[in-house]
């Protein structure tokens, strides 16, 4: 019982966790690369700092999107059935949290497309 509850909470907060991980990786990797003077290094033609940020953003975005859509589908199929109020609430909260996290993850990756690395 408590095992599934933990899982539900993790799923509900999934997007925020992905966002936190993305944040940590982007800041850590950017300051390390910039500190070592890798500002101009490139990977497949794009700057390595930008490449890391874009890759991390995709990595955070895709699982969040999957969780978001999964929750949406599960919530729709909940209609009719008499699920507990708590379950329904957690699903609603999960949809909202994961949906907003998708936007925030994009915002956090956006500077890579506009600003020069290490400026």
């Amino acid at each position: 019982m408590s095992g599934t509850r933990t899982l539900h909470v993790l799923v509900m907060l999934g997007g925020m966790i992905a966002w936190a991980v993305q944040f940590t990786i982007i800041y850590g990797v950017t300051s390390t690369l910039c500190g070592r003077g890798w500002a101009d290094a490139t990977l497949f033609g794009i700057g390595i700092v930008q490449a890391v940020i874009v890759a991390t953003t995709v990595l955070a975005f895709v699982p969040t999107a999957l969780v978001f859509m999964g929750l949406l589908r599960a919530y729709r199929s909940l209609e009719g059935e008499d699920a507990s109020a708590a379950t329904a609430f957690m699903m609603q909260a999960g949809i909202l949290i994961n949906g907003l996290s998708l936007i925030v993850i994009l915002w956090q990756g956006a500077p890579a497309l506009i600003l020069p690395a290490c400026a």
Partner: protein
Amino acid sequence: MDSVARRAAGLLWALPVAGCGGVQSALDPAGGDATGIYRLTIVMTAGATLIFIVVTALLLYAIFAPPERRAWLGSRRTIVYGGLAFPVVTLSLLLPYGLLVMRDTDVPRPGALRIEVIGEQYWWRVRYPAEDGQAEFSTANELVVPIGRPITVSVTAADVIHSFWIPNFGGKIDMIPGRINRFNFTAERPGIYRGVCAEFCGDQHARMAFDVVALEPAAFASWRSTQAQPAPEPAIPFLARGGELFRAGGCGSCHVVRGTEANGRFGPDLTHVGSRRTIGAGQFPNNIGTLAGWVANVQHIKPGARMPSYGSFTGEDLRALAGYLESLK
């Protein structure tokens, strides 16, 4: 009583108005970067004010309106559009806008005029490095720039941390001993502006300012070639006597006057001190009276400045000395 209150109200009213224009105001941008930052500020301030007013009005409505009229405030639709969609759209527009302003601000440009500024307690050492045929020279407390040409100012400090800030040109940058920071800008209209030290650096921090003079390119070129010249010979015996007092007084142990034996590097370069608008790091208009007052009484008017007062000159000698300084155009 009544007139005092009225005058106080008048002063309060004048305050924001007076703060907007002029030689030292971030709200009166004189360069491209400063204009971009200024626009961003206006957009943010106006937008935030508008949103604040609307939210406050809705809040009051929610508290005081009769229940049946305020019910729509709690509807799902209001929450989704007002609470989710609106902030998401607003922030999604503001973020790229802010990032674009950031990208276009303080960008080093090829062909920029390089100027070096060193912050010292409590004045600014300014150096124009040699550049295609133009000799290098030093001056102080004055940044003269041509309009339309990108400028790169490299800054550092000699003693403690200072901060270089010309509000009309945006940007503010720390001057840190042992480290060189750069600041890029372009002046767009001729004029006189004022820069200040923006990091507390000691007793006289508040009296550490400088003039910024933006000139047409031709005027700048002529200023530059004049500055690179050694000091003119005293034209009349009275000024020659001032020059002799300068030598005998030991001023040359701290000050350079190129073309004479004065070669002290501790204080400001005085080769063309007479051509500056102000003395004492932007504190006094530059004329024979303030020059004499400065020499006789520095420690009274700028206590703690790294120059001793010379109170023992006779009035006649002081006039000659100040006249000599003033003649160094």
